């Protein structure tokens, strides 16, 4: 067991964990931030995507200690108080979900996509960039619409 410290959603946190603890387990089990989901646990589905030092990462495929000292943002950390993040708002507005299981990872990936690719994303780019996020309900149509609108809304 070892203490692992990082900044999660702007707050300094520490927990004592086994070296085997994955970042997603640290977030969910130790910090009770259960918005980050475990879908496949094999780094394919993207339900566990969070931002580590500004880059989207599959938190099921890194150990908590690899994030020692890092700044981590989860789905719980993107809204501004009661006001949803523009990407969250776009998913709500365009109904970019059905069961909602993949949604936190979709939104974290979408925000990362905008950070890397800018605010004007064509559908082809969005679909290509969503390669690492699986949704088993929607057929992606409304997710793509939501990301396109959310990306524009993030321009402010």
């Amino acid at each position, binding site marked *: 067991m070892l203490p692992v410290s990082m900044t999660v959603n702007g707050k300094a946190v520490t927990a004592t964990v086994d070296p085997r603890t994955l970042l997603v387990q640290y977030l969910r089990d130790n910090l009770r931030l259960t918005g980050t989901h475990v879908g496949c646990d*094999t*780094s394919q589905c993207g339900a566990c995507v969070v931002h580590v030092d500004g880059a989207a*990462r599959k938190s099921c495929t890194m150990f908590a200690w690899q994030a020692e000292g890092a700044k981590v943002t989860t789905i719980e950390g993107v809204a501004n108080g009661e006001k949803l993040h523009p990407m969250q708002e776009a998913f709500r507005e365009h109904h970019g979900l059905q069961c909602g299981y993949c949604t936190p990872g979709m939104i974290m990936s979408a925000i990362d996509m905008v950070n890397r690719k800018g605010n004007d994303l064509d559908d082809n780019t969005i679909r290509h960039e969503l390669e690492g996020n699986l949704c088993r309900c929607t057929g992606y149509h409304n997710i793509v619409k939501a990301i396109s609108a959310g990306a524009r809304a993030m321009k402010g």
Partner: protein
Amino acid sequence: MYAFKFERPTTVRQAVNLLAKNEEGKLLAGGHSLIPVMKLRLASPSVLIDLSKVEGLSGVEVTPRSVVIGAMTKHKDVANSKELQAVMPGLAAVPGSIGDPHVRQVGTIGGSLANNDPNADYPAATLGLGATIITSKRKIPADAYFKGMFETALEPDEIITKVSFPIAKKAAYQKFKHPASGFALVGVFVSKRGSEIRVAVTGAGANGVFRVPSFEEALKKRFSPKSLEGLTHTAAGLNSDIHASAEYRAHLIGVMARRAVAAANEKGGAED
């Protein structure tokens, strides 16, 4: 997953010493191949030696004759390197086809080459350009490096520090992706550097990446997809599974090789 200890060295020398000291130790780079196999208990390292704190292992350096890529350089940083795109777009395109955006933000060239997955993309580019793998103790030519499925010439206490790719005037990679996993069902990298022609195939061989001398000979006469017309690759020694039979993979080698040569001619400038 079995229990392990971990170490976070800050120099290559420390990392080498830790490897030498721990027979069951394993290096951790991006972790997107190693951590999944640890979860499956197919790997059970006693010690994980995390390379992320080691200085000086990342970066893309373009010199007049070669491109030198640090072992810990992430796929996205190779793909996005403007300098590399300018001199050898065919190589820059390879990491952009690996995994998905999240994987490309952590996966590394050194990790890919040390793992030598039989379906990985970088081995094709490395063998297809005749690159040199630079380690903590020596320089290994690509032709002597790949030793079979998940097998390389690396010794137990040897760490890849850089990979040096000669700049080829024409180079391109074409990959037939498995539609679900995105791994190469068959990927072919071709290059032409002066009179040296290379054709390297990943995904198809039961023993990992390999060259195709008969295609290389044909392309020496004229570096054109037409030179490969009618040439076939034997299905003997190729993978056969539920995704594709050996015969289908053999067919794809011809198709992807012709496409790669066409792309190299297009991207690599006029024929000389």
